[in-house]
């Protein structure tokens, strides 16, 4: 998996690149907008991480140019501009995700993985399955080991998101953004309580546990290897 980082701050790019390399990705770094655009157009990357404010050519223009050239490389914006309007602008220009600096590497990694494992085809899935946990999206029914599990609507959405990203780390912010659909900073770990409730329902009477807490990062739903 090849990842392109377009970032003018050497320390940030070195730090991100080191982290991603350790996770097994091949990383290229471009330190200005023009160089970044040339690389993104001429080579095939699986994902690009692009800063908004860059010398020579800003991140928004790079992404707009790429999208016009029909390059659908998944793109994560990395920016110090954290207002909601900045985020909307970034996503409208063709970015797939938007992360505000300063950020935790675990958050970036989780988002990178979520984007990379996004199903290539947008075919509508009606069934999700992780180990013996099954979700029927049409009947809105969940079973584990053949036993039906009753979930509240929000718990259903939470579990659906986790199942769609099975095997990956999902951060609390990602859950707030995608399951609750709000951009905000909870002062307490409200999400944790929802997770433990969900865990009660899907893991308590079964073996093995599927919903794991990843310390310092978030959660991961995965079956036994």
């Amino acid at each position: 998996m090849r990842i392109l980082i377009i970032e003018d701050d050497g320390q940030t790019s070195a730090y991100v690149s080191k982290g991603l390399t350790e996770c097994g990705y091949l990383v290229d770094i471009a330190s200005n907008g023009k160089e970044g655009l040339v690389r993104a157009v001429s080579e095939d990357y699986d994902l690009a991480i692009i800063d908004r404010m860059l010398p020579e050519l800003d991140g928004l223009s790079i992404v707009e140019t790429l999208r016009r050239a029909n390059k659908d490389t998944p793109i994560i914006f990395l920016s110090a501009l954290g207002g909601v309007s900045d985020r909307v602008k970034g996503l409208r220009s063709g970015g797939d995700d938007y992360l505000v600096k300063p950020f935790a590497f675990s958050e970036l990694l989780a988002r990178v993985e979520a984007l990379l494992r996004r199903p290539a085809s947008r075919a509508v899935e009606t069934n999700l399955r992780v180990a013996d946990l099954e979700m029927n999206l049409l009947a809105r029914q969940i079973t584990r080991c053949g036993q039906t599990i009753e979930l509240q609507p929000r718990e259903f959405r939470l579990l659906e998101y986790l199942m769609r990203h099975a095997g990956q780390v999902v951060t609390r912010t990602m859950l707030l953004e995608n399951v609750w659909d709000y951009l905000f900073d909870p002062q307490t770990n409200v999400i944790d309580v929802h997770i433990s409730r969900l865990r009660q329902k899907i893991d308590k009477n079964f073996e093995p546990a599927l919903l794991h807490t990843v310390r310092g990062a978030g959660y991961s739903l995965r079956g036994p290897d």
Partner: protein
Amino acid sequence: MANTRPTASSHNRRLFHSRIFRLALIYLCLFTASVLGLLGFIYWSATESVTRQIDSTIDAEITGLAEQYNQRGLVGLIQAIERRAGKAGETRGLYILADKAFEPLAGNLSRWPDELPDQEGWVTFRLEYPDDDGGSANFGRARVFDLGKGIHLLVGHDIQERSRIASSIRGTLIWSVVVTIGVSLVGGILMSRSLLRQIDTINETSREIMAGDMSRRIPIGKRGDEIDEVAGNLNAMLDQIERLLAGMSEISDNIAHDLRTPISRLRTGLESALIGQPDPEGYREAVRKAIEEADNILKTFNALLSIAQAEAGATEAQFESVDLDALLQDVSELYEPLAEEQDIKLKLDLAQSARLDGDRNLLFQAVANLVDNALKFSPKNSVVTISLLGGLEDNQKPDISKIVVADQGPGIPDQSDRKRVLERFHRLEASRSTPGNGLGLSLVAAVAKLHGGTLELDDNAPGLRATLSLPQS
């Protein structure tokens, strides 16, 4: 400041260069021109009417004399002329009958005038005698006739009257123009002076403010004119700037205080790990602690940023129609498990539905902060109520939505404390031990302000009742 104060001569120079003075000058020119035009017309029409009157008198006399001549011939004419000439002191008539050589035969003129008449026989000529006032030369206006047989007749009138009227009008005219120019000039200078003085006050105040005295304000007059309005607006702007500056210096003080502590804690932790040379697991633990500390710092930082953005109104562009009851349902649903875990009942009371234009993320954050706060301070087995009220009790403002979050915790007994908790980083001593950065309520207040509303804290007897009042669009 003294050296920038204008000296008397520079003051005058400024006066003559001032816009209002230029306007006064232009006004003066226009006014003078119109006075000149008006009086010129009066002069012209007055002299014209006097001339016409003289001409018609002359014509009447001629008709009379012609009758005498026709009935009684030359002798009758001479008699009539002599008779009329005798009364010339009152009528101011002029008569002369002359022979072939223009030698006078009768009349009150000593000789035939040298001036030549026009085609109709009218002539204006200089009289031998001076006018009554002993002034300059006197003139007469007359008509001449050739009676045939070498006899010439001149009938006229002296035009002293006309000259007097004309000269009196001329005098009036000159005086009016002089007075007009004088009055306008003085008025212009006075007007410019008073306006300049007001503007100088504004300038002086601005200079003092630029020099660093932010507390200065422009004095506002009692008349409420446009200059006072400008001054009032400038003062309001200065108030706002001062408030913002105060907010800014307060926030930097607070950042210095509340971020320095965790950052130095972070640094100390890392340093002691480095000095202590623990085993790999010890290092791991130290790094984990450091990350946790850094996350807290980021959280505080983000909260500060959100407050700053909400206060600056920067996010107003993101306003959309927000369904408040749906938003409250979401908040309640998000916090319900947390409440249950703490044995607190979270009650949602939606008496009515409401929509308003706002930033849904910030509104959600605000209500979440209130609920978070309520849960933090609530004892077990108590109730936290989230309710949505219209401004029904308050008929004056029916289009205000009130989001009320009430708990049964200790509340904030002291009235002045209730105000202070809205300030950034302010945490009541009692709550120091609970987690939080002291920014929650000030963010709520900032969000309320961004939406043109208010946050009020009241006694819920027992507990705290936080009311977020938001005007509907």
